[in-house]
């Protein structure tokens, strides 16, 4: 303390919270390490998708979508998502209503079961359906007798996608609805609103953004699912290949521009998903700020 008077420049610069050399160095080391790490594992791969897709020019990029099988893959993916996402959304809303609005025995256990598809490897998710509906599966011979195709056909792809994207909407809604509480719904009910009216007019506006994000995330995962669908699809080109499976086929044929062009569509979908998430968080912070 000798030689440093209170209030002098030397004393102020050594006060906590001031920008000492060490603090500045730490700050830039942390920022540098973070940026370096993220650039290597996250940003470089994302950039690689677009540069490879455009490596032979814009014309070649757009030409790859003119391919018949690529078009079929895109249509199959859209069709699968159009069936899977609404079903999982209805499930998510039902599960969230039952779990968040009521107290009952076995609730925690039910939530663990809903989380199960998160924990299971996508390959196992596909495998279970092959064991059920495959040629040697439990219902295999019955399905063959009745000429119904599940595995290596559209129903299998839909089932596997349903399994994998099962928890997304429910997982997004349950914490949100628990946090919002029951007061307004109870008020609406005691004032004579019907159950459906209460949900549509009171609950739905409050959970709107969470629901939108859950649906968008579910959709992104449904369109992008690879492992589970790969097991049940049979890889029949132009018939049972979804976009991610078509990427694999093109990639293995060294058709890199085509593979990365399809990949760029799914990457854009992921970017849109993240933008919706940011909007949702912005809405939430604005709502809590008011």
């Amino acid at each position, binding site marked *: 303390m000798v030689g440093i008077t209170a209030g002098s420049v030397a004393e102020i610069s050594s006060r906590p919270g001031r920008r000492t050399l060490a603090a500045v160095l730490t700050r830039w080391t942390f920022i540098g390490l973070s940026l370096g790490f993220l650039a290597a594992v*996250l940003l470089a791969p994302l950039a690689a998708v677009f540069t490879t897709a455009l490596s032979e020019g814009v014309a070649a990029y757009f030409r790859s979508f003119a391919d018949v099988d690529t078009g079929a893959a895109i249509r199959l993916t859209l069709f699968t998502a159009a069936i899977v996402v609404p079903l999982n959304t209805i499930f998510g809303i039902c599960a969230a209503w039952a779990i968040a609005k009521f107290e009952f025995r076995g609730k925690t256990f039910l939530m663990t079961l809903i989380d199960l598809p998160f924990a299971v490897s996508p390959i196992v998710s596909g495998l279970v*359906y092959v064991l059920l509906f495959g040629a040697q*599966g439990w219902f295999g011979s019955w399905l063959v007798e009745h000429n119904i195709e599940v595995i290596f056909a559209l129903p299998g792809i839909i089932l596997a996608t349903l399994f994998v994207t099962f928890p997304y909407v429910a997982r997004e809604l349950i914490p949100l609805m628990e946090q919002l509480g029951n007061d307004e719904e109870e008020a609406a009910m005691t004032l004579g609103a019907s159950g459906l009216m209460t949900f549509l007019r009171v609950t739905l506006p409050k959970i709107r953004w969470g629901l939108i994000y859950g649906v968008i995330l579910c959709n992104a995962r449904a369109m992008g699912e690879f492992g589970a669908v790969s097991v049940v699809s049979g890889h029949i080109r132009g018939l049972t290949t979804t976009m991610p499976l078509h990427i694999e086929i093109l990639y293995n044929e060294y058709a890199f521009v085509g593979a990365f062009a399809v990949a760029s569509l799914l990457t854009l979908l992921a970017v849109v998903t993240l933008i919706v998430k940011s909007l949702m968080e912005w809405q939430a912070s604005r709502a809590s700020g008011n």
Partner: protein
Amino acid sequence: MQAVSGFRQPSVLPGFGLTLGFATFFLSAIVLLPLAALVLKTASMSWAEFLEVVLSPRALASYRLSFGASLVAALINTVFGFIVAWTLVRYDFPGRKILDAMIDMPFALPTAVSGIALTAVFAENGWIGQYLEPYGIKVAYTWLGVTVALTLIGLPFVVRSVQPSLLEVQRDLEDAAETLGATPLYIFRRIIFPTVVPALASGFTLAFARGIGEYGSVIFIAGNLPMKTEITPLLIVIKLEEFDYNGAAALGFVMLAMSFVMLLSINLVQAWARRGVVAARR
């Protein structure tokens, strides 16, 4: 009023039976019944048959790779995930919000896309691979490639676990410690680390669990050589392609059992983390 009053607490809100009924039915049809089929299929095998598959040298090698690479990737993510979370929470710099939003990219990006993109970057002639090649470091088509893919996949789990807990750290406590002469390292060890460690553990477990089952992002970069760079999920796919349903079911059962163990550990770690947060607030 309710016949099932012992089962649930009464409420004026309607729709319990309908929503719970539908949710349980859908859950059973889509998730539980198929998983039960896997367990039953495995149960129909004899012990000798089961053990022959799951303890075969090729299977053991695949567990080693799946577990080893997931463990290394989860450790890398614990270190760098903390650094990234710290940077995002504590420092302001241009582009911080965009970077923060991009952390979730591996959640939203299809695994096949991350797989081919990482391979492009880390291959011998790739943007990063070409600088590692002169040092004899091969990433693509080795176990290192598997680890890199699992690092990308696990990153958001650690960052998103740690971020809220870093916000919990009491800044005035840090300032007080500093005025009392504590070194930054001491402050980190005694104030910051204890608050964050449950979240780190929880993020580590989530990333590790996810890594064991991961398929899409790994197979493109792994090389897929039997005994060397073949992960367990790929071995299941190979068994299925050979129409060896029993073999596939046995390995699938092992992976399902691992998932249950991981799910249990995640719940335990998170319960412990919640207790830790409560204790820190006191």
